[in-house]
């Protein structure tokens, strides 16, 4: 699992207005939030001041505000813009959080831990049906072969699966159905949900090799 590759970290619907989403990729916790202008921020999930998770902070539209002492960080740059304990003047020195690259595509949000890899290559139509994500308490290497053999009866168009490696012990299956039939989306979601939950049970009972 490469720190240089793109991995899905959320579904687009996980980022409603003024929300901060808590994600994890390869052991790195991320605070993910969509600014009012649509820009998606993927930041290290830690306030630089005293280490509080920014995912419990407030998305104020163009800035994220930390819950502990109200420090504000600007969308895009992640630079600290305001320190309420010293309201006069701008922060004395440059304080900026760590940011990660981001792409929104196919109903998913993608990121990478190391600086921008090449463009995300997928041959998917733009608006697939995004399945509910399935968090699994087993490493990606255990889940991959199970997904390769995934073939629930009567499933119609085959979903495409991406595995989000949250850390070395766990992962999230993110599936999308490229060209969903015009009707029956709900039945399709239910069918895959049940089949993937069964797959999860198998994955979690299998001892790591």
């Amino acid at each position: 699992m490469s720190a240089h590759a793109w991995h899905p970290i959320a579904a687009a619907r996980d980022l409603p207005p003024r929300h901060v989403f808590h994600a994890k990729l390869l052991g790195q916790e991320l605070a993910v939030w969509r600014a009012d202008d649509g820009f998606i921020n993927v930041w290290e999930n830690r306030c630089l001041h005293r280490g509080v998770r920014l995912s419990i902070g407030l998305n104020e539209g163009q800035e994220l505000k930390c819950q502990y002492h109200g420090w504000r960080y600007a969308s895009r740059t992640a630079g600290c813009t305001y320190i309420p304990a010293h309201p006069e003047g701008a922060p004395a020195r440059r304080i900026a959080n760590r940011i990660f690259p981001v792409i929104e595509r196919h109903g998913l949000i993608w990121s990478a831990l190391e600086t921008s890899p090449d463009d995300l290559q997928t041959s998917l139509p733009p608006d697939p049906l995004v399945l509910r994500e399935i968090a699994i308490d087993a490493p990606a290497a255990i889940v991959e072969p199970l997904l390769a053999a995934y073939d629930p009866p009567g499933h119609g168009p085959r979903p495409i699966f991406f595995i989000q490696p949250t850390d070395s012990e766990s992962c999230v299956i993110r599936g999308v159905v490229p060209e969903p039939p015009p009707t029956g989306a709900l039945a399709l979601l239910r069918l895959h949900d049940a089949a993937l939950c069964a797959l999860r049970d198998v994955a979690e009972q299998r001892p790591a090799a």
Partner: protein
Amino acid sequence: MPDPTTANLWHPIAACADTPVGTPQRTTLLDTPITYTLHGEGHATAASSSMLPVLIRYGYIWTSLGTPTADLFDIPEYAEPDRRRFNAASVSVHVSAPRAVENFLDMSHFPFVHTGILGAEPHTEVKEYDVETSAERDEVLATRCRFFQPQPSTAADQGAEVEYVYRVPHPNCAILYKSSVIDETRRDVIGIFVQPVSQERVRAHMLVCVLDDRSDDETIKRFQQTVFGQDKPILENQFPKRLPLDPRAESPVRADRVSIAYRRWLSAKGITYGVIPAA
């Protein structure tokens, strides 16, 4: 293994008022299971694999895994007969002891964490205050700390600029003094005595020792529990859980001078338990 300084400290393990008399109780201190019994009349015993020293002070049972000093730090106000004094709560928190102490010493979170009680926007400024580390008394002291509070205590009807003094006389214990709304010549005293269960888990025992002639005990307790209940989720979302002692590890500002002094004092004491020592 805890460092020698930590092992030789007196640590709080329970409030006497919350401990049934004559029945052995269990707790954990510095990763070590402990059994203790309150025998009544100000006498208690404690043991791990062997008998441990015991002290009863400020309404709490204290013990040590090493060889502690003869007595604990002094809180002279505790002896004043007209004060309301009791344990307001003993709360488990998934954080290190020094992170819990540092939170207790911090004014700048009041408007954001204790909104409408101990602070409110736009009154967010932390004015200049004084910090000293007294070698002779071996404690960190912050004075002239002033902050606007909408509801400083259960005895208050309205907001006021309140003056605080903070004392850290023990690596895991801190005491604050804040202007009394009843008697301007005296100060309310609130202490936090933190029991390190492990390097990243604590029981925080909260002593109140206040001037309040109109609230019952439950009201005073509920006020402190509300305030600490607001701190707990913040503390549990702080990473790393152990306090980094390297001054470059986090980003302090002027308002954090007491935290900087506290971290330096812990470093000088050679404490490694519950912290990330400076390189």
